[in-house]
């Protein structure tokens, strides 16, 4: 199983990606699982590393195993959106699976997951080292979830801008909003750097931020379990009345 390429919008035929993953259409289910894996593997891997203090290789195995089981064992069938957030459900599944594996000592040997998910653990390790880890592992999982949401939305925006011939808009956004705070350039400097008028910087940023907002909402839809959860998250996390 290979995660959906970054930024490739998941063509939802159902309102929620979870509903698609729980559906009967194998193709749609597979794509839904790709979307979930793509959105959640980083928070899962980092959470396992922090919560259970496991070695890198074991965390990699566990993450592979978790997403394989998610697909094979139909974990999501027992998820009820009315009872809680998708990410809380997944975190509970992680804890339960980990405890079961410890108890039964039947952990699969490295690389034996029935379905191998192509995941860049090397990159995740670098990210883990670069991020601050204060508070509980649960809090960290939530924080990583938000980080992943935004990071995937940035990828969506990049792909979208590329295909629409608006790479400068994305570059201005990337330089101004995604750069280091200390080296944040002025509008004038950006105008000079990209050979555009200063007023264009304002317009480009406004465009990119507006599109980014849409990308975040699209990504959020892939990462929530129900329309209610999606609406709630959109309101509390992003400050928008999602449509």
């Amino acid at each position: 199983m290979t995660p959906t390429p970054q930024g490739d919008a998941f063509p939802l035929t159902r309102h929620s990606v979870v509903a698609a993953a729980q559906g009967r259409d194998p193709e749609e289910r597979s794509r839904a699982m790709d979307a979930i894996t793509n959105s959640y593997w980083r928070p899962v891997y980092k959470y396992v590393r922090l919560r259970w203090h496991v070695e890198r290789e074991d965390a990699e195995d566990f993450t592979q195993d978790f997403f394989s089981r998610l697909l094979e064992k139909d974990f999501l069938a027992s998820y009820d959106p009315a009872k809680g957030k998708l990410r809380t459900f997944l975190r509970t599944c992680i804890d339960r699976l980990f405890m079961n594996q410890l108890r039964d000592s039947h952990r699969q040997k490295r690389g034996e997951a029935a379905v191998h998910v192509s995941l860049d653990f090397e990159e995740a390790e670098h990210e883990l080292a670069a991020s601050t880890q204060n508070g509980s592992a649960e809090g960290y999982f939530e924080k990583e979830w938000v980080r992943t949401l935004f990071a995937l939305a940035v990828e969506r925006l990049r792909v979208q801008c590329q295909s629409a011939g608006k790479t400068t808009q994305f570059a201005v956004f990337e330089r101004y909003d995604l750069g280091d705070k200390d080296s944040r350039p002025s509008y004038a400097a950006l105008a000079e750097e990209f050979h555009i008028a200063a007023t264009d910087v304002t317009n480009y940023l406004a465009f990119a931020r507006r599109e980014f907002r849409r990308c975040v909402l699209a990504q959020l839809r892939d990462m929530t379990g129900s329309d209610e959860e999606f609406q709630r998250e959109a309101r509390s996390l992003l400050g928008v009345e999602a449509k």
Partner: protein
Amino acid sequence: MKFLPDQVVARLQTEMQTPDLSGTRYRALELLGHGGMGTVWLAQDSILQRPVALKVLAAENSSADLAARLMQEAMVLARLEHPGIVPVHDAGTLADGRTFYCMKHVEGQTLDLYARKLPLRERLRLFQRIAEPLAFAHSRGIIHRDLKPANVMVGPFGEVLIMDWGLAKIMPVVASSATGQAPQHAIETDELSSSATKAPAHEFTRAAQDSLSSEALAPENTTAHGTVLGTPGYMAPEQKRGEVNLIDQRTDIFAMGSILQSLLQEPSGSPEGESYSRPLRAICAKAMSAEMSARYASVQELAADVGRYLDGLPVSAYRENIFERTARLVSRNRVAVVLVLAYLFMRLLFILFSRR
């Protein structure tokens, strides 16, 4: 996928919270503050080239009920044209779905900050000025319900503006309210807040109909009896109990009493001086009576009592004894008393020397 450091995630989250002003004439400049319902942004009106304030429904509050409440607040403000009430310019829904309204950008300080530097008598005059727009609102049947020092702004020239009418309630305006009597509240009419039941058609007096269109302001819903809205410390007992049906202008008078009490506090905290005079304490106590019927019937009466105190006249809230009355009369007529005493003294000297 590009890794986003914590500070970038935080910045993007803030960016997402920034209202999407695309398609409007406004450009967000900076976040001025957070209110109960939303955020207030300093923005530039690109057509009129002037700064304005935009009140935008907060993300976590963007329910249909609260959006309706914010819009009702704008509608109330639009109809309360008074120098002491911030004027609203525009209202609508932004591209991101959030409700907003645009109002005059008020530069100044909140009452608590501004009053700190003033002597007591200046603070009391300031209090009288707060009563003016409030009396105007009451005459239009609007009860503020969230009066507190933080909701009163004092401009650079000492002008007073009452802000944040988001919890306001519209009352039936009866003739008695114009004459300073407590309004009858047999009928619970419009509420700016909302819940589940549809409000009936309401009748306003002719005076009220002139300024407030019941059709325009009648919300879909009313606040349920039992709903507690307001700020602890400034809420009247009936408000704390959620007795929405009982709320009238005397509820605001209670809050005004609390504001007066806070204005009487000396910045030093010293329990000395005029601010602890019995008449002033009595005015506060009357305004803040637990029994609604024991409070001032109108905000004009309250302001008038403060005015009487400032003029050295007896206040209605306090019955003074003979000594206090004498002391007040002496204090009020110092020059005349000195002249009379001087005359009597001279007369006495004249009598004494003339007998020798």
